[in-house]
């Protein structure tokens, strides 16, 4: 088991490295110059040059990458061109907000998806199955920024139950565990949870329905196990696949939906990315993309490590 984890960790290193290259280089492919954003349009050439060397933009790209990587490894992602604050601090604050939102959305989506999917699988071919299928299809196909707008209109304007914007009262971006902050969380989390809910429902439904047809489930019944005990067997058999799908979905959520965070002005990574793109804030953009990609790498690593713990057929041979 230890050797397996070590192997997975070593595999993760080249992936992580290529992620840094891509997140650094991609930004240079985009048109636009960050200096346009901070220097006045009629700035003299000397000023532009001085700014370039201050931000290290005068060096060749590979050298820039090397320097950036060296600092990034030490936790320094540079300074935001637009705000002048440390990128690491900005990204971390946004990440914690997105984590919160994504965590809630994932929790809701996966829980509801599992329950709905299991019901549909157990009642395969009945009206419950059909209702669950319709819900999941709507879930995966509805554009969620549109859903966000509709929910805002319904539950924030017509029925003033929940606030429509921000992570806390007065646009505060510091999170606190109180009802006022939680109320801000409801609508964006609900909006974001719809896609993973739909995907998990479909996955679980297919897995459970297939599992119940397996000979071993008949054999479990022939042994006189109760329905609850059999469900435990079915759950443990479906868990590895559900975990893999859920991991991927949580990964997407961590990326912070640019659209949903923008609709709700949620101070997360998606919102930050959006700002960085429009301001041509290269260090901020690179830092944010890097951190998000690392999330994916780490999450996949976690799923890889967890799966053989549940499914003995993997890893033990």
């Amino acid at each position, binding site marked *: 088991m230890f050797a397996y984890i070590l192997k997975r960790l070593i595999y993760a290193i080249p992936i992580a490295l290529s992620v840094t290259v891509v997140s650094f280089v991609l930004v240079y492919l985009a048109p636009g110059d960050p200096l346009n954003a901070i220097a006045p349009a009629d700035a003299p050439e000397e000023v532009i040059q001085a700014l370039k060397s201050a931000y290290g933009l005068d060096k060749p790209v590979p050298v820039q990458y090397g320097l950036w990587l060296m600092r990034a490894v030490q936790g320094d992602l540079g300074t935001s061109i637009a705000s002048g604050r440390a990128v690491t601090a900005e990204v971390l604050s946004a990440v914690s907000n997105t984590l919160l939102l994504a965590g809630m959305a994932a929790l809701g989506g996966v829980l509801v998806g599992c329950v709905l999917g299991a019901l549909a699988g157990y009642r395969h071919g009945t009206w419950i199955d059909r209702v669950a299928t319709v819900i999941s299809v709507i879930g995966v196909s509805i554009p969620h920024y549109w859903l966000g707008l509709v929910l805002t209109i319904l539950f924030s304007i017509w029925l003033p139950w929940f606030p429509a914007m921000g992570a806390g009262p007065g646009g505060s971006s510091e999170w606190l565990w109180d009802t006022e902050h939680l109320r801000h969380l409801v609508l964006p989390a609900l909006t974001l949870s719809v896609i993973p809910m739909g995907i998990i429902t479909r996955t679980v439904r297919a897995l459970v329905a297939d599992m119940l047809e397996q000979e071993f489930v008949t054999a479990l019944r022939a*042994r006189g196990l109760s329905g609850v*005990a059999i469900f435990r067997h079915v759950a*443990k058999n479906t868990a590895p696949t559900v975990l893999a799908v859920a991991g991927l979905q949580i990964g997407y959520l961590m990326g912070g939906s640019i659209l949903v965070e923008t609709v709700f002005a949620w101070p997360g990574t998606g919102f930050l990315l959006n700002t960085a793109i429009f301001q041509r804030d290269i260090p901020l953009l690179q830092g944010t993309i890097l951190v998000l990609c690392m999330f994916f790498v780490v999450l996949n690593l976690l799923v890889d490590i967890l799966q053989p713990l549940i499914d003995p057929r993997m890893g033990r041979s």
Partner: protein
Amino acid sequence: MTAPLVSLQNLSVQFCGNRKASALNAVNIELGAGEVLGLLGESGSGKSVTLRTLLRLHPERSTKIQGKIEVDGHDVLALKGRALDLYRGGTVSMVFQEPGLAFDPVYTIGQQITEAIRAHGAVGEAAARAQALHMLERVQIPQARRRFDAYPHELSGGMRQRAMIALALACQPKLLLADEPTTALDATVQIQVLLLLRELQRETGMSVIFVTHDIGAAVEVADRIAVMYAGRIVEQATVGDIVRTPRHPYTVGLLAATVGAEHRGQPLQAVPGAPPDLAALPPGCSFAPRCAHASERCRREVPPLESKGGHAVACWHPAQPVAEAA
């Protein structure tokens, strides 16, 4: 005579999914305590359906069951809830054809046997584990302690079938249903498993219904053989009577189709034709279309199963036993 342990009375099973199919038609079987019955027949003759109906394993929504099943005083078709769970595995248990498919792949052999034991009695975890280990030793699994913690995919086919038998016997059932338990195994392992089953049956005194399409295997373990064809029992007698004086043309055909040293060099005698479609059974004897002796009556009327001296046959023109003919 005391009441038999198992009695199936006029049991009919119909599957009504996309197509209707009559899998069993008015089957009567009686089995005494300690008796071993071999159910013989080709694919689709209703052998496995009989076993699965005995454990009520068919999906209730799409299965229509008529008739009566009594096992050890239980009215099986009326069992519900906890009583049904206790009956399954406790009174009657089953050894499946494919041991590789009949174990849950993500639990160890030991966990699964322990779980089954605990589902049937107020036994503590430790006691149940000890009992499960003892069962593995009883079915002669070498290094039982190590195999206890093995997952099903880590055992060979023969080992898995032994473990399956250990699991089936863990709660001391009165009736063991063996659904072609040796079909999926190598020839050498088949004999070992058959011998093990026979030995365990003698030790415990349980009754066994042993389903097979292999006459050799049936002769090896059974006291009595019932030959099934298209959901009906066509002949039933002791092993000796079936082998020496088969009366139904189908049984005669099956016996002729076995491979033996005395027929070396001659082409194998097969029963011509294929079994009928269960969704559209002929009005008369189901075997008539394949039978050399079929008459007009055979095609019109279903022959009843008539017993004479313990040898029952459902045929309008049964072969005459040599002794009687003389």
